[in-house]
C-alpha cells in the first residue's frame, strides 16, 4: 500500500509541477487557444485522477490489507544489476566501441542470469556480437560507436 501511495503522490506531484511549467509558455498573439491550452487540460485530468487514485487507495485500505502477499521472486536484486549492466554498457559504448562493449555486456548478463557453461557463454557471446555487427553496421549501415584510441582501431577491423 505504501508504494501504491508513493506512486499516486508521485503522479500528483509530477502533474502539478508540469502544470506549473505550462504557465511559463509564452502567450500567442492571435488567439486564446495557445500552446498551454491542451497540456493544461491533460495535466488537469492527471491531477484529478491521481487524487481519485489517492482517495481509492485510502478507501480500499482494508481490502489491500487482506490481499495475499505477492510471491517473492528468486532473484530480486537482479533488477538493479540488469539496469547497472545496461547503464555501464551505454556509457562504455562511445569509449570502447560496439564490438568490445557488446562482448562484455553479454558475458555480464549471461553470468547475472546464472548461465555458467563457459563454452556456451563464449559461443553465444562471440556469435551474437558477430551477428549484430553483420546486421547493423554492415548490412543496415548504422554507424554504431567505434570507440576511441586503441579501441577504435580494433573496431575498424570489424566495420
Amino acid at each position, binding site marked *: 500500500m505504501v508504494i*501504491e501511495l508513493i506512486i499516486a503522490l508521485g503522479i500528483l506531484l509530477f502533474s502539478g509541477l508540469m502544470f506549473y511549467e505550462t504557465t511559463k509558455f*509564452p502567450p500567442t498573439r492571435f488567439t486564446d487557444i495557445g500552446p498551454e491550452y491542451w497540456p493544461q487540460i491533460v495535466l488537469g485530468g492527471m491531477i484529478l485522477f491521481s487524487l481519485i487514485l489517492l482517495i481509492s487507495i485510502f478507501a480500499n485500505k482494508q481490502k489491500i490489507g487482506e490481499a495475499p502477499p505477492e510471491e517473492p*521472486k528468486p532473484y530480486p536484486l537482479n533488477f538493479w544489476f540488469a539496469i547497472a549492466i545496461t547503464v555501464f554498457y551505454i556509457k562504455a559504448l562511445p569509449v570502447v566501441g560496439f564490438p568490445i562493449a557488446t562482448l562484455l555486456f553479454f558475458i555480464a548478463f549471461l553470468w*547475472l*542470469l*546464472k548461465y555458467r557453461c563457459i563454452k556456451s557463454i563464449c559461443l553465444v557471446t562471440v556469435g551474437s556480437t558477430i551477428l549484430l555487427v553483420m546486421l547493423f553496421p554492415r548490412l*543496415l549501415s*548504422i554507424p554504431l560507436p567505434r570507440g576511441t584510441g586503441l579501441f577504435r582501431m580494433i573496431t575498424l577491423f570489424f566495420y
Partner: protein
Amino acid sequence: MNALFAALVNLLEPANLAVLVGGVFLGLLSGATPGISGTMMVVLLIPITYSLPADTSFLLLAAVYCASVFSGSISAILFRTPGAPEAVATTLDGYEMTKKGKAAEALGVSIFSSATGGLIGTIILITVAPRLAKVALKFGPTEYFALAMVGLSVITVLGASNMVKAVISGLFGLFLATIGIDPTAGVPRFTFGIGALMSGMELVSVLIGLFAISEVLRRVLEDNTVKQQVGKITSTLPNLPMIKRLSGTIFRSSLIGTFIGILPGIGATTAAMVGYSEAVRWSKHPEKFGTGVEEGVAAPESSNNAAANGAMVPLLALGIPGSATTAVLLGAFILHGIQPGPLLFFQQPLLVNTLFLGLFISNFLILFMAKPFIKGFANIIRIPYSILGPLILMLCILGTFAIRNNIMDVWFALLFGVIGYVLEKYHFPLAPIILGLVLGGMAEQELRRALIMSGGKWGVFLQSPIALSLLIAGAVLMFWPVVAKLVKGQKQKGTDLPAQ
C-alpha cells in the same frame, strides 16, 4: 482493380515475398515463445524497417502481427501456457486434447481455423475499409477530434480492471505527445533544454522501453536456468469430414471475430472468448466443451485471427488503432512519414493494396509454414531465457539507437523500461500510454484548429452530426465498462442477498 493488380505485381517481387515469409516465421516464433509477444516483435522490428521501402516494411510488420496471433495457440495447446493473450480461450479445449494424446490433431485444427478465420477477416477488411475511408473523406477538424476521442475511449476497455489507473496511463501518453516544439505556435514545451526532445518524444524509445525492456527487467528476477522439457511435436491437419464438421463453427466465429475486431478496443482476446462461448451456445453437445473437443479449438482460433484482421479496418480507414499491436503499427506508419486514414487509400493505393494482399497471403503461409515450424519449435523452446533475455535487450538498445543515431534515445528507452516495469507491477496498463502518445498530436491539433475556427466555442462539436455521433459513440465505448461493472456488481448483490 488496376491497383490490386499493381499490388500483386509488387508483392510478387522476390524481396517482398522473402520478407513476407520471414515475417510469418518471426510472427510464429514470437507468438509461440512465452515471454516474446507479437507486439514486442513488431516493436523490435520497427527500427530495422527504416532502411526498407514502406510497402516492404508494412508487409513484414503485418505478417508478424498476423502469424503471432495464431502461434500463441501452439504453447497454449502443448503446455497450457498461452504464447499470446489471444490464445487464452484455446487452452480450455486445446490442452485437454493434448492430455488425451491428441496434441497433433489440436494443433492441426488450430492451424486450419486460424488460417480460415484470417482469410475471412482479410476479405471483409478489403471490402469494408475503402468504403469507410470514403465516408471519412468528408471529415473536418471537429470530426477528426471526435474520431481521436473515439480512439482514446478504448483506454477504459484496455484497462477495465482498474479504470482510474488506465485513464492516468492514457493521460500520461497524451502528456508525452505534447513534449517538443508546438507545431502551431512554434514554442518548445517540456523540453528543459534537452536538444533531443525538441522534435518530440521518440515513439520507438517509448515503445521499446515500455513493451520490451520492461519485460526483460521483469524476467531477470525469475529463475531462468530451468530448461523446458519438450519431446517430439507434430501436427495433423483436419481431414475432409472434420473440415465439414467444423465449417459452421469456423464461419460463425470468423464473422463474430471480424465484427469485434472492427470495434475499437475490444480486441482479439475478447473475440476469442466470445467466439468460444457462441460455439458452446450453438453446439448440440455444449457439455462436451472443456473436455477436449475440436470445436473448442476451432472457435477461438478462427475468431481471434479474424479479429486481428478486422482491427486493421479502423486503423487503415480512420487512423485509429483498435488494439495495442495496431497502436504500435500506427506508430510505425507515422515513423515512416505515412498518416493512416481516409487519404491513405487515395495517396498510397499501392501500399494499401499490397498490404491487403500481403495479409491475405500471410494467412495462406500460416497454413503451409505452421507444420514445419511446429516440428522445429521443440528445438527453439529449449533455448533458455538467460540467452534470449540479453539478446532482446541488445536488440532494444540497437533498435533505439538506429532511429536517429542518438544515444539520448537509448537512455530514454531505458528510462521507459523502468517506468513500464513499475507501472505494470502496480497494475497500470501500458497500452493506453501508447494510445495517448499516438493519438495525442492529432487530438490536440484538430481541437485547436476547430476552436480557432469557431472563435473558441466548444458548441462547434454539437453542430456537426458526424462529430456528435462520434462523440456519443466514444462516450458509450468509454463508459460501457463502467456501466457493465456496476450492473455486474448489482447482479452479484442480488444473488448474494437470498443466501444471506
